[in-house]
């Protein structure tokens, strides 16, 4: 497994250059450039079909998403050479738009197995059962989750909102270096959105980075981005500060869809 290297002060934490990717015969990413420095939260917005979810899957290495050109590095490590689990061990986490159900496997068992697999890959000792439970209780309390829910099979029979909360719970448990949130606000009511956003904000730190993918501006009222990028037809077509999100909310994506 490739070891993490410390980023030098000028390089971005996540660096994508000229990224092209396709699914089957269809090219979806067409030369995407993006730099996210350590400590920053960047938002990716864009119309449906622009390639937002594809970007999250390409970065995490989902089978079927083929990179045909360009590079993707996290802390100087070439992500494209790594297996999905190696990317996770290197600190990359994806909060899924549609989290999967794992029948028969209690959520805590699932998370503990995954956490220990990551630690093993990094050459760290397994987390002890009491430490794990302590951490789980504290994370669950922060997210106002019923602890008994964590003893049930992972995501089985959970509502859309509960599944999203479970994603953020996992994110808190793994404390990853770089987080991608794919449409985390969908399926959340306003109270849940607040709790989840607080959970996400609690993870903001100078040595972490975050990419928030969303169709709507409303999530960005709660998770304030440092930069906003517009993704249309497989490329970043505009970048700006948080005000760009407000502008998109007012005028829609038409301008960019035409430009692309």
């Amino acid at each position: 497994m490739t070891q993490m290297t410390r980023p030098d002060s000028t390089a971005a934490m996540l660096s994508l250059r000229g990224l092209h990717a396709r699914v089957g015969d269809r090219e979806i990413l067409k030369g995407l450039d993006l730099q996210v420095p350590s400590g920053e939260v960047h938002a990716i917005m864009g119309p449906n079909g622009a390639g937002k979810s594809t970007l999250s899957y390409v970065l995490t290495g989902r089978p079927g998403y083929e990179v045909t050109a360009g590079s993707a590095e996290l802390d100087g490590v070439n992500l494209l050479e790594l297996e999905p689990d190696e990317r996770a061990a290197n600190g990359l986490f994806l909060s899924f738009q549609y989290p999967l159900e794992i029948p028969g496997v209690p959520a805590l068992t699932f998370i503990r197995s995954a956490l220990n697999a990551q630690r093993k890959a990094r050459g760290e000792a397994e987390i002890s059962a009491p430490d794990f439970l302590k951490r789980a209780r504290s994370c669950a309390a922060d997210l106002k989750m019923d602890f008994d829910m964590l003893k049930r099979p992972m995501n089985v029979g959970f509502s859309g909102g509960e599944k999203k909360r479970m994603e953020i719970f996992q994110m808190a448990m793994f404390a990853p270096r770089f987080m991608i949130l794919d449409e985390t606000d969908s399926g959340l009511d306003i109270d849940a959105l607040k709790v989840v956003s607080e959970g996400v904000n609690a993870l903001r730190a100078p040595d972490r980075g975050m990419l928030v993918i969303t169709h709507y501006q409303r999530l960005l009222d709660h998770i304030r981005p440092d930069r906003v990028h517009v993704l249309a037809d497989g490329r970043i077509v505009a970048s700006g500060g948080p005000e760009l999100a407000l502008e998109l909310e007012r005028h829609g994506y038409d301008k960019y869809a035409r430009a692309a």
Partner: protein
Amino acid sequence: MPAVKDTLEQVAGLEKYEHGFVTEVEQEFAPRGLDRDTVAFISRKKDEPDWMLAWRLEAFERWSAMESPDWARVSFPPIDYQDATYYAAPKAKDGPASLDDVDPEILKTYEKLGIPLREQEVLAGVTGAPRYAVDAVFDSVSVVTTFKKELAEAGVIFCSMSEAVREHPELVRKYLGSVVPVTDNFFACLNSAVFSDGSFVYVPPGVRCPMELSTYFRINAAGSGQFERTLIIADKGSFVSYLEGCTAPMRDENQLHAAVVELVALEDAEIKYSTVQNWYPGDPETGKGGIYNFVTKRADCRGDRSRVSWTQVETGSAITWKYPSCVLRGRESVGEFYSIAITNGRQQADTGTKMIHLGEGTRSRIISKGISAGRSSNTYRGLVSAHPKARGARNFTQCDSLLIGKSCAAHTVPYIEARNGACTFEHEATTTRLSEDQLFYARQRGLSEEEAVQLLVNGFVREVLQELPMEFAVEAQKLVAISLEGSVG
């Protein structure tokens, strides 16, 4: 099967089948082929009384007139019954009296397999660790049975079948063939003629057997079959839990394993019978070699309120063909069947159960989890029937199949017969494919592909694993993982 050694540790560096080694030991064989003389030879080797020989010979005559059945969803070339050896035993004087008399090579074999034959080693284990007595069957003979003395103090008889025939003829004559009649089926009939060794258990009235009992079957010799016979009798109000484990060397030829297991539960008695079957499955690519596991297992819940539960984890064998069944004769007797059957490579399995409700208020429960991978075929075949007197009978059946990859097959063939209007049968079945999406989700969280498959599969079989004795469950869980190694991608 004892889980003394960590299976994963055992197989470090080894791929696929980890028990495929051959023990070099001097052996004694019956002449190749099968006729009355072969039957007489086996009986003589075992120093059997005349009644036993007569029983065997009658079975042989009946078998000679029978045809091999062809209704199961398995295919294999015709077996030449004359081209096999029906008795293979390590050379010994009169059967070992103690461990010191057992060939050191055989002891090493069991050590390698992680089976404790030295009582003091078991006793020296961690305080509170579960203890179990072992009957070790090597090809056609039982080489040693442990903890006999301690069991005898509780009144429990645990010995090899050969010994039981000589020492406890009254029990053997009363119960042998009373659950699986000699002519029940082709393979049971063959077994009745040539059965070699196996375990005998008798638990007296009101006794709770003080430890787990287990038999470990090992086929070693080439060109031989194994035909063990096991008989367990739980007398009124008694309880016994019994474990069975099996392995064999890797050989290019197919070897026949045609066992018969009979369980008798009298009034208020309970028997728990667990199997982890890990016979050599044959070459995963070519399908060459492997064990034909054609076994008849049946329990007779003879007494009122008696209870039998079968739990099986089937991962090995080229072909598995078995239906551990319960005849629910006693009023309010209960039968349970929990099964995990895994096929990979070129394996074929046709397995399930029969719950025959004869008595009033009888209940049964079937949970079957079939997993097919590679180019294997996995069939659940089950019968639930209620006879006219079995009013108030209840059955719940759940059959789930999981497919891994694109070239395997799963079939479910349930038969349901209700011959009275006052019974309740429920049947649920599902077939799912291990989804790429679930795998990716687990891998994104940091699990390797194999760890992810293992976790998903363990989730799928959890309900059944929970039925196994604790230590056994850990072993079974690892076995499940090993059986599916390399099944994805």
